[in-house]
């Protein structure tokens, strides 16, 4: 059973899933680094991304699944921006007591609301978006699902685009300035409030993109975002809160650990279920031995 091909196959699948996890975690870490808010509705942004792509591609029909991904990102951009203005801005204007607690409550409240709204509107039954491309692609000795490869490739493209945006554009640099020191940034003429808004909207749309990219691989249900969001939390803690490099490397590490780890449990139903627990073990280890994560700043 444990042939070299087996490990190669699990490793390749782990890398593919790791890219998708990294995309999701990147949105979370971007929001955290600029707004200092952990977005507990990240999983629901992912879920909405999956549903909007499904809606456009399979219900309305007649469009390429890629257009579905772009549509999902646009929808989440708007939802993220509106939510930030109406619920998170008051916190940054200083009109909210105990902002840390408020941020968790209001994003968690949104998560609860969205999950139940989609349940009421779309029902509990799973839906699957049509494939990017059916069948498999043969690379050397491995045959990999074309949908997975395309999803991973697109998430690499999106991550590269985000890195370029953050490093090369004025807005990206301004966002980094706000994340380092809000007050100093505003002295130089940057409006921290609009940077908060842009960062939150982009973060939400990255979650939406990962949901839309995975929609052809796994089905969407109203609570499909719960496990991916928990995984994103763990990745961000592992990589270091607010670290972009940490989110990408952390995502790939978690993808590999889950995939290789699952191969070590002989009982297949257990292997599948316990894949989710490796992250928690890593979480415990990080808290015990390196609480600031791989690339986080020392407290």
């Amino acid at each position, binding site marked *: 059973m444990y042939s070299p091909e087996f490990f190669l196959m699990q490793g390749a699948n782990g890398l593919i899933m790791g890219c998708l996890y990294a995309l999701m975690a990147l949105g979370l870490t971007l929001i955290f680094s600029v707004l200092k808010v952990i977005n*507990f509705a990240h999983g629901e942004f992912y879920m909405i991304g999956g549903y909007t792509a499904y809606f456009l591609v399979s219900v309305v029909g007649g469009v390429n699944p890629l257009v579905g991904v772009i549509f999902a990102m646009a929808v989440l951009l708007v939802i993220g921006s509106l939510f930030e203005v109406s619920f998170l801005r008051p916190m940054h204007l200083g009109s*909210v007591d105990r902002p840390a607690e408020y941020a968790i409550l209001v994003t968690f409240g949104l998560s609860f*609301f969205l999950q139940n709204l989609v349940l*009421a509107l779309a029902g509990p039954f799973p839906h699957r978006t049509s494939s990017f491309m059916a069948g498999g692609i043969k690379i050397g000795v491995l045959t990999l699902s074309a949908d997975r490869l395309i999803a991973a490739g697109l998430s690499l493209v999106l991550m590269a685009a985000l890195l370029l945006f953050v490093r090369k554009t004025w807005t990206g640099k301004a966002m980094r300035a706000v994340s380092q020191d809000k007050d100093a940034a505003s002295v130089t003429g940057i409006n921290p409030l609009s940077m908060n808004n842009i960062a939150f909207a982009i973060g939400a749309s990255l979650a939406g993109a990962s949901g839309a990219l995975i929609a052809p691989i796994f089905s969407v249900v109203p609570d499909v975002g719960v496990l991916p969001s928990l995984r994103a*939390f763990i990745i961000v803690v592992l990589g270091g809160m607010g670290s972009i490099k940490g989110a990408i490397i952390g995502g790939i590490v978690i993808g590999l650990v889950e995939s290789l780890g699952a191969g070590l449990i002989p009982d297949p139903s257990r292997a599948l279920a316990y894949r*989710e*627990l490796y992250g928690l073990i890593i979480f*415990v280890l990080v*808290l015990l031995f390196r*609480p600031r994560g791989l690339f986080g700043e020392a407290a």
Partner: protein
Amino acid sequence: MEKTTLKKLCLFTGLLLVGLLIPLIVKNSYWLHVFAMAYFYGLIAATWSFLDGYAGQFSFGNIALVVIAGYTSGLLAEYTGLPLSLGMIAGVLAAGVVGLFIGYLCLRFKGAYLSLFTIAFAEAIRIILNTEHRFTRGPCGLHVEGLFNTTSVVPYYYLIFFILAVSLFVMYRMLRSKWGLFFQAIREDDEAASAMGVNIVRYKIIAFVVSSIFCGIGGVFYAHFSQMLTPNFGQIATMGLVIGMAVIGGVENLIAAALGGIIVQFGLEWLREFGAWRMVIFGALLMGVVRFARNGLLAPMYKKFIGEEV
């Protein structure tokens, strides 16, 4: 006697009397069942308020601790010949020990580690209970023995009412003691509290363990009252319900949070005909209260009537 003390005495005696008299007026066992579940949720909402509203530590783990205590007691009764009472004590202890472990792991640091860890932990417990179905019966549910040799709900009603009243009293006394001051000092400004000589990590852990133990008591009751445990009771949505109850009542007021739990449970029962939309309504209410009425809906009324906060 001070005026506020007198008012408080009136309020608490009034609530106690109403609670004791309800089974004499409400004869319908369905509604008595709803009352008992409302008290259970009131208790858990109060443990959440105890931790978040006073010590400032945001946990998603209360329902997971309820589930751990319930399953410990239920599984011990199923697989060992242990008397129910010992199994129940073991359930409460298990919640306390797990609470101590989580507290030690997460509360040594500042920041949102506790919220992040407990939400992942709760989901992990649910996954394990579902996966090890040969042992736990998984989604089919674990049958748990009842406590009383009768089909009547009345003894359970009085039991959970008693548990709720005593738990609230004990937590209230703790918060009125030196501990309560330390908790609030940590919540308002942990660096200042630390500079004044409060061992902040220790008191954060104490607050977490106390809240865990009361969750365990609630969990053991829930197991033997509902007589059926399923892993999905421990899903994050249930925790969302508890947090919403405490927030709608008023996080910074133990009594208001418990009353919030009771009232919301009745509200949800009343909205049952709306089906899936009732949770949408609840979610919207939760967000609205957080945004526009930060102190909840009941706590300000309490403050106005009594003239002081809890």
